[in-house]
């Protein structure tokens, strides 16, 4: 675990450095718009750059940013004139609410669905499921988001953006919960529909492999009931590959919804990162990338821990 944690830290350092270099070396910067304004002199632009340390060499700026990250500030937003952390955390919380709920729902639907397809392979349930997941896979996330937005606009059943209605904070708790649920429905539906096909197909494949394995066949031949064979033999055997996929799901919690948030107007990291990229607000982008990478590394570490817990062969090799 210690070695993996060290690898994770090195990976994060590499990601932050690479992101910094790519953003710094790409053509253009935050001050280009100021330069285009004839009423702002070049000296004024240079003074503003110096005020925020943007005239320093790249290594110095990178290490200053690292120091800021260590203090929990994650740098300074040139666009919003405040520490990046004060912008980041509320948005990250909103994103995690959305993606956490979507991930939970997607797995709760996909596991039994994929298992049923495996148990009924070749039958009409399996074929219908394959057709549906193929259709969902073929639809791009952008189109899915836009279709749901169209549904909201045409029917009025759901709000077309935002996280809560005006004056919702003055309503009773049940009404606030209902209001939040209505606002969550469309973005959660978009994320669930987008991630379901992969999890369903993965579950189906893993269960088929497990059900076809010799020790499961031996268990059936020994007269062990089907339900026990499924839950005590096949499902634990299929879990290994599902745990790895689950680790990636956790790893994508901050990044999977960026596009959907922009399309459906959810006030999460997505719109913030998009605005920051367009404005070349470099430290906001860096912080979002590093935070997403933390989740990716953490998700893989979690998957490793779960694999260690689930499979005694891995525990034996490790010891």
């Amino acid at each position, binding site marked *: 675990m210690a070695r993996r944690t060290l690898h994770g830290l090195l990976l994060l350092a590499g990601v932050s450095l690479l992101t910094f270099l790519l953003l710094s070396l790409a053509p253009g910067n935050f001050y280009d718009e100021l330069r285009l304004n004839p009423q702002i002199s070049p000296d004024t632009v240079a003074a503003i750059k110096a005020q925020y340390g943007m005239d320093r060499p790249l290594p110095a700026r990178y290490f200053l940013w690292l120091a800021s990250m260590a203090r929990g500030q994650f740098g300074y937003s040139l666009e919003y004139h405040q520490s990046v952390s004060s912008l980041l955390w509320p948005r990250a919380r909103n994103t995690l609410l959305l993606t956490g709920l979507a991930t939970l729902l997607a797995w709760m639907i996909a596991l039994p669905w994929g298992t049923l397809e495996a148990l009924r392979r070749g039958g009409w349930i399996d074929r219908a499921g394959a057709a549906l997941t193929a259709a969902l896979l073929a639809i791009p996330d952008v189109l899915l988001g836009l279709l749901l937005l169209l549904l909201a606009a045409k029917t009025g059943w759901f709000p077309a953006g935002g996280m809560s209605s005006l004056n919702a904070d003055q309503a009773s708790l049940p009404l606030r919960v209902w209001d939040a649920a209505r606002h969550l429905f469309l973005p959660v539906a978009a994320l669930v529909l987008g991630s379901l096909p992969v999890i369903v197909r993965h579950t189906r494949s893993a269960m088929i492999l497990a059900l076809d394995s010799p*020790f499961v066949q*031996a268990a059936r*031949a*020994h*007269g*062990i009931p089907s339900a026990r064979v499924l839950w005590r033999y096949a499902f634990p055997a299929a879990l290994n590959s599902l745990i790895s996929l689950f680790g990636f799901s956790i790893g994508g919690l901050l990044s999977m919804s960026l596009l959907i948030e922009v399309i459906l107007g959810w006030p999460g990291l997505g719109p913030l990162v998009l605005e920051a990229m367009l404005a070349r607000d470099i430290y906001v982008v860096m912080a979002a990338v590093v935070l997403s990478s933390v989740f990716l590394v953490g998700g893989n570490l979690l998957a490793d821990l779960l694999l260690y817990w689930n*499979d005694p*062969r891995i525990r034996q090799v490790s010891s």
Partner: protein
Amino acid sequence: MSVEVQPARPASAPLLAVRELTLRYRRQSPLRGDGPQVTALDNVSLELPAGKTLAVAGPSGCGKSSLARCIVLLEKPDSGQILYGGDDLLTLASRERRRVLREVQLIFQDSAAALNPAFRIEEVLEEPLLIHKSAASAKERREFLHELLRSVELTDKLLARRPLELSGGQRQRVAIARALACRPKILILDEALSALDLSTQGQIANLLLDLRETQNLSYLFITHDLAMAALFADHVAEMAAGRIIRVGPPQKGVTGNLQSGSGALPSPSPSGQTVPVR
């Protein structure tokens, strides 16, 4: 371990009989529909009386393992009957089927793959006891496990280990012990010795011969090794391309195996039809 003595049976009443069993595999493609069929078993008939050993010998792909899998209901044949104690297994209700599967146990060639790698040996052996309710209390189960291990010449120290921590010979003994835990009447040994080295083969073969005597078991011994068939069997049925082509007594001193084509059975029956084992 307590021995169940089988009641005396008339010589003509087989314990297990397979009648005109046919199994075909069909390749299916969502684009091309049903593909060509492969006939794994073609009107196979044989009988196994109580207390006897019938070897089924043949090269790879002749249908021996398919036959074994059909008998323990892992495969559903297209036609035919599998009669056990007079009942057709293919028409039994699930509760009766479970009772029958307790009495007919299959031992696989690859013991490493046939044992759940995540289970400890104790769990592997306890599972049939729990399912078939063969021992009422935990104490009885524990005592039974100790007896089981002694009967296959293993020690209690192995109970805490997992299958991949054991040698091939130890794993095969555990597989035999697991089969014995169900107090079977028939053991189907599907190339159960093929994956072992010669020395271990001899040890396991001797164990099986001893168990046959002490526990009054009947064996359906599937092999491509004619020498092993001669050692074990009262009769040998030779298979090729899914059919029984010859049945006869084993000839002592025969060598070779049907895998390489170096062996052959003597004195085929005149009609080439299946004859019951006596």
